[in-house]
């Protein structure tokens, strides 16, 4: 039975039916080698885990993940979900993870936009533009990210005025060494408006899909941009109207030591995002540049010969082909950005590493703490990798 199970299907092996259990059969050899290697690796892992646990027990060190249910007792500067020191360590880890994800998502989007523009700029025929982009890329790529983070953080905390002397470029917008304070909306209309916005985005995506189909089929183009802008404005406004227009503008006001109310971008978050985006964008720019240069020159010439402007050639002919080349290296850059966000600990942004370090230090459960950090990064990185691989397959040239 076992032999039959292991045997390749008849379709794969073609004419051969019976398995010859001989050392001379390369398939058999391969199976034996692999099973042996698997056993060895398994044994090593078992030995390490067993020995670690025994040593920890011998040294009277508590093990296990029970501590995640204990009361954390420390505050976290910023969190996307409700959190107070009376919550558990587990929730604190979640707060840290969400902070990491937030910075990663915003960072990836911003770095992609900036990097693409820089990469295109690098190839501009205007030598001033291409020179400046070149200088930016070289400077950013050759300074360690940690130094850049310190630079951005010092820029906010040491150069910006104190809260009481905050710089106010617009009414109710304040910039100080406590961060950027913006007016924000408050009230039950918010959810309706957000719902409207989500609906509008979904409608825009469907619309763009439909308009592309129609253009491919009939050649007639559709004014996508105005339609989308109208949708994005109208649907939230409709939500606001339906919900009874119940919201107030929450304006930041200076009270006590700091501004109260409104929306805050803390100096830590700003410094981390600024550092990650400007640094990663330089690498993305190089990826985009090489991707554009990988497209055959004949494509430019052919597109130009039918009278398209350079901008339209870039948008409709070159960039779609560039995508196929840039997705794999772009994936690496995204992964780098996520992993580099762990440098947040140096400037006090409460990402997962910073929070888990605190927990690890209070509970002393170093092995568990590091395991949590590693697992979190592994899951996030693999998710990005899987998504990008799926996207790559979708975009890849289908050859017939």
């Amino acid at each position: 039975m076992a032999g039959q199970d292991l045997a390749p299907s008849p379709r794969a092996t073609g004419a051969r039916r019976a398995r010859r259990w001989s050392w001379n059969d390369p398939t058999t050899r391969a199976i034996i080698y692999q099973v042996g290697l698997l056993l060895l690796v398994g044994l090593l892992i078992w030995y390490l885990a067993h020995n670690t646990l025994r040593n920890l027990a011998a040294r009277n060190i508590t093990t296990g993940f029970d501590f995640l249910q204990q009361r954390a007792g420390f505050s976290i500067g910023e969190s996307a979900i409700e959190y107070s020191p009376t919550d558990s360590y587990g929730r604190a880890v979640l707060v840290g993870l969400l902070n990491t994800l937030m910075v990663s998502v915003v960072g990836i989007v911003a770095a992609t936009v900036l990097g693409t523009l820089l990469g295109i700029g690098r190839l501009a025929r205007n030598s001033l533009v291409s020179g400046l982009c070149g200088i930016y890329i070289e400077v950013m790529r050759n300074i360690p990210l940690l130094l850049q983070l310190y630079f951005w953080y010092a820029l906010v905390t040491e150069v910006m005025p104190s809260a009481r002397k905050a710089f106010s470029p617009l009414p109710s917008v304040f910039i100080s060494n406590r961060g950027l304070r913006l007016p924000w909306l408050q009230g039950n209309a918010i959810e309706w408006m957000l719902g409207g916005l989500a609906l509008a985005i979904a409608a825009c995506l469907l619309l763009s899909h439909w308009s592309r189909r129609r253009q491919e089929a009939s050649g007639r183009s559709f004014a996508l941009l105005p339609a989308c802008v109208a949708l994005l404005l109208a649907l939230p406004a409709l939500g606001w109207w339906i919900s009874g227009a119940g919201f107030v503008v929450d304006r930041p006001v200076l009270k006590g030591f700091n501004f109260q109310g409104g929306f805050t971008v803390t100096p830590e978050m700003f410094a981390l995002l600024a550092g990650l985006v400007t640094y990663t964008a330089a690498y993305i720019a190089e990826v985009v540049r090489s991707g554009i240069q990988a497209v055959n020159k004949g494509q430019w010439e052919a597109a130009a010969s039918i009278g398209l402007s350079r901008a339209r050639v870039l948008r409709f002919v070159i960039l779609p082909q560039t995508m196929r080349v840039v997705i794999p290296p772009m994936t690496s850059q995204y992964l780098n950005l996520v992993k580099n966000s762990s440098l947040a600990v140096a400037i006090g942004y409460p990402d997962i590493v910073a929070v888990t370090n605190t927990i690890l230090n209070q509970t002393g459960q170093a092995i568990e703490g590091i395991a949590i950090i590693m697992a979190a990064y592994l899951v996030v990185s693999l998710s990005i990798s899987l998504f990008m691989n799926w996207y790559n397959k979708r975009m890849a040239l289908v050859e017939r």
Partner: protein
Amino acid sequence: MNKALTLLAAGVALAFASTAAQAGDTYNAVKKKGFVQCGINPGLPGFSLADSKGVWKGLDIDMCRAIAATVFGDASKFKVTPLTTQQRFTALQSGEVDVLTRNSTATIARDTTLGLMSTGTNYYDSQGVIVKKSLGVKSASELDGASVCVLQGTTTELNLADWFRSHKITYKPVVIETSEGGFRTFEAGRCDATTSDKSQLAALRASSSAPDDFVILPEDFSKEPLGPMVRQGDDEWFMVVRWTLNAMLEAEEYGITSKNVEQMLKSDNPNVQRILGVNGEMGKGLGVDNRWAYNIVKQVGNYGESFDRNVGKDSPLKLDRGLNAQWTKGGVMYAWPIR
């Protein structure tokens, strides 16, 4: 990432370590290698700081030197491993250092869940808050809504949260990795206040460019008994560290200093004779030379000398003896008798 690597290395060390700790292990290993490996604070004026020549100095360094004097009769037979707050306990657990002389607070959790053992207190501290004088704040209870810089992963973070909650006021923590980093961020104005053990605040204030601009608020958030820690499982080594500290305190109580120790050898006070090993066999039980306390006082000084030189009146910090005075002088430094 460097820190995570150290921790990982410690974890790996635990994974590959073949034998469990046995009584006498640390003690024998220290004797065999010929020096004591102390885990210390990488930079805290008065407690452990390398001077311009790279020589480590401070109250905690003196503790380490005294242990070397006890074991080897030579206070120079020690090496130091600077450790951050994150690294310290793992480094001790995994055997990277023999003893932690690194202003660490003794707590029951550390003794019972980390496999560590506090050997005594060489500095009684409390957690406080420092603010800029220009803020005009007189008490920590006026700090509602303030941003507070705090050192990552210390008992400080917990005490701060507890204290503010019990006083029903709020704050925003800005958690910084190192104490100098925290103070610099505070100086720049990112935080309204910064919190730490009061001795650390005094040290940081003393090393700032304008010490008079800052004021340490009167509130004590906690008790912080700081002292050396060892791993569990080696009673001999534990006793060596504990009695080294006691010997420094006893020497001060009986007026034995590094300057008069030679004359004191001729003293007819039986206590002094026992401490200095002229009479009795006190060192033998510890497995060290009978003149161990003599060696400590001769080479390092008694506790009071070490205090004055590093953090007290002869130092830039100018900390009061306060709780750290001898019990005979209104403090709580009360050594167990050497007899």
